[in-house]
């Protein structure tokens, strides 16, 4: 059966728009119709603005008719994770705390997508304040995995991954603090890219852990991810951690960079807890690269066993600080039961935050508190130095590292209720955030039960062009990205 139009790649849709075979309004209508057909089962969105999307699509058609189309994203419907600001649109972070918040301004990535002509479509569900690995922590209910509606889409950017897999958007943005783009991309069978820290502006992103957070694209293909990255990357004076990095034409670079490459296999990423089907699929990917002439080298990242602990100290410490601003005073939820000004803080936060957010605020407050700072936070920052050094040492011998994205495929909704068990879902993705590196998850097969599996490629700092070319070399030899979930 032919794909619904909303399941085509940006590259294909761009050609159809250019040839006037379809209009941007027709494309937006198709995405809206598809969403209406499947959203009751998937629940990828927190809110949708159909009239806004149709108006933006009409403006795109007018530009194209006047010969002023702005490039490959002009007229393409793109969804935003509900932690990224878009002026005049709700911004909830999937939290009761921000249930009624409306963004007064655009995030830099939002402004850049608008400049590129993209049709902004919908606010996508996630774990509350991006804290989680399953999107079950949303105050507005979980998102289902389109490949098996009884299973989670991963998280925290689960809505971004599920909407794309279900054909409810043509690309989406998520944010990745410890794997929140790559893990849901793996579990939903799409491409997800976490850029180098500092390549994409965080201005207008609700902060979770500021030294780890990075915005990045979900897309059907590596080329589409390159297209979206090209639109959102680059220095921004509004983000003081934004780098003056060169932003090449990533799509053009994909054609230029043909390998072969030296790929490192970190032995610590193939240990206990790895699902056999995931391990087998990744081994086949390694064999494929070898057959293509790539040099495969075993490497060691010896501090890997300490990544999880280091991450949960640093991420919760930064979160406890960032979330202090939600006090019921200037914006966000305000308790109706406060007896005085100080009680207003305690009750507004108690009523506004969900269980996982409270857990992390408490842990973060504890590791920063007097008497424990040196033992936990400062020590974690030092171990972070060693973790980063492990990666930089490996890059003396290889161009990129190859690992599974997630140790397990999509698990059942409600299956993992113990916080520590859920934290272990991130063991292959968090080292990348601690070291600030770029990494991409690409589909690399299915379990015997039909669940998608993701391959993670970890690149050198600011070498996204190389990383995406390596990922595309795998994608070219396989047809995983053409498979569709049976939602119809």
């Amino acid at each position: 059966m032919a794909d619904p139009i909303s399941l085509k790649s940006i590259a294909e849709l761009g050609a159809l728009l250019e040839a006037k075979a379809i209009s941007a309004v027709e494309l937006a209508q198709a995405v809206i119709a598809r969403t209406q057909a499947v959203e009751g089962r998937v629940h990828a969105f927190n809110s949708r603005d159909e009239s806004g999307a149709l108006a933006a699509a009409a403006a795109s058609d007018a530009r194209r008719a006047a010969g002023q189309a702005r490039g490959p994203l002009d007229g393409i419907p793109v969804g935003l994770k509900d932690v990224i600001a878009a002026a005049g649109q709700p911004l909830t972070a999937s939290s009761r705390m921000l249930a009624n918040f409306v963004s007064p301004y655009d995030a830099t990535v939002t402004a850049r997508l608008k400049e590129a002509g993209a049709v902004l479509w919908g606010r996508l569900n996630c774990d509350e304040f991006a804290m989680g690995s399953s999107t079950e922590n949303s105050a507005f209910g979980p998102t289902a995995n389109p490949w098996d509606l009884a299973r989670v889409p991963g998280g925290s950017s689960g809505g971004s991954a599920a909407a794309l897999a279900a054909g409810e958007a043509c690309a989406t943005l998520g944010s990745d603090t410890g794997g929140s783009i790559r893990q849901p991309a793996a579990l939903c069978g799409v491409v997800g890219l976490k850029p180098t820290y500092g390549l994409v502006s965080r201005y207008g992103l609700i902060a979770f852990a500021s030294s780890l957070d990075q915005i990045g694209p979900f897309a059907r293909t590596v080329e589409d991810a390159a297209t979206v990255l090209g639109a959102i990357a680059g220095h921004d004076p509004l983000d003081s951690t934004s780098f003056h990095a060169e932003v090449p034409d990533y799509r053009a670079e994909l054609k230029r960079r043909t390998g072969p490459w030296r790929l490192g296999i970190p032995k610590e990423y193939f240990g206990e807890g790895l699902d056999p089907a995931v391990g087998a699929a990744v081994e086949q990917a390694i064999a494929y690269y070898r057959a293509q002439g790539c040099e495969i080298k075993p490497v060691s990242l010896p501090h890997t066993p300490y990544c999880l602990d280091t991450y949960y100290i640093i991420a919760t410490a930064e979160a406890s600080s960032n979330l202090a601003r939600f006090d019921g005073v200037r914006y966000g939820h305000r308790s109706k039961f406060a007896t005085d000004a100080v009680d207003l803080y305690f009750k507004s936060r108690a009523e506004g935050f969900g269980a996982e957010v409270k857990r992390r605020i408490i842990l973060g407050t504890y590791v920063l508190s007097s008497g424990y700072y040196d033992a936990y936070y400062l020590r974690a920052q030092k171990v972070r130095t060693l973790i980063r050094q492990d990666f930089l040492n490996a890059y003396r011998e290889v161009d990129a590292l190859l690992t599974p994205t997630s140790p397990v495929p999509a698990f059942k909704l409600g299956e993992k209720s113990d916080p520590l068990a859920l934290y272990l879902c991130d063991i292959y993705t968090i080292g990348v955030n601690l070291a600030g590196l770029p990494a991409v998850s690409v589909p690399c097969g299915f379990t015997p039960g039909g669940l998608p599996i993701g391959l993670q490629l970890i690149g050198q700092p600011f070498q996204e062009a190389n990383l995406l070319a390596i990922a595309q070399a795998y994608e070219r030899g396989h047809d995983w990205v053409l498979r569709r979930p049976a939602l119809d």
Partner: protein
Amino acid sequence: MASAPQLNIDHVAHLARLALSPEEKARYAQQLGDVLHHIEQLGKVDVTGVEPTAHAFPLVNVWAEDTPRPGLTAEAALRNAPAQRDHMVVVPKVVE
């Protein structure tokens, strides 16, 4: 697993300005005790002489010109305020 003896949940919740129910206190103390037990293994790493990393790519002295530019109007800035009057946020009385 026993809760970590050093985590005084009342003290930490007070620092975090979070009102917790007795059930929440018991549950979080137990769950965070498990997490802290896991974290104890960081003590095994030799960090002698290792500098801490605050950001993956060191940044110092990021300057911006101090020039005026358009910002939000008072109406836009107060659009999300829970209570307001005369372009001000209304809060409970803080002085007697």
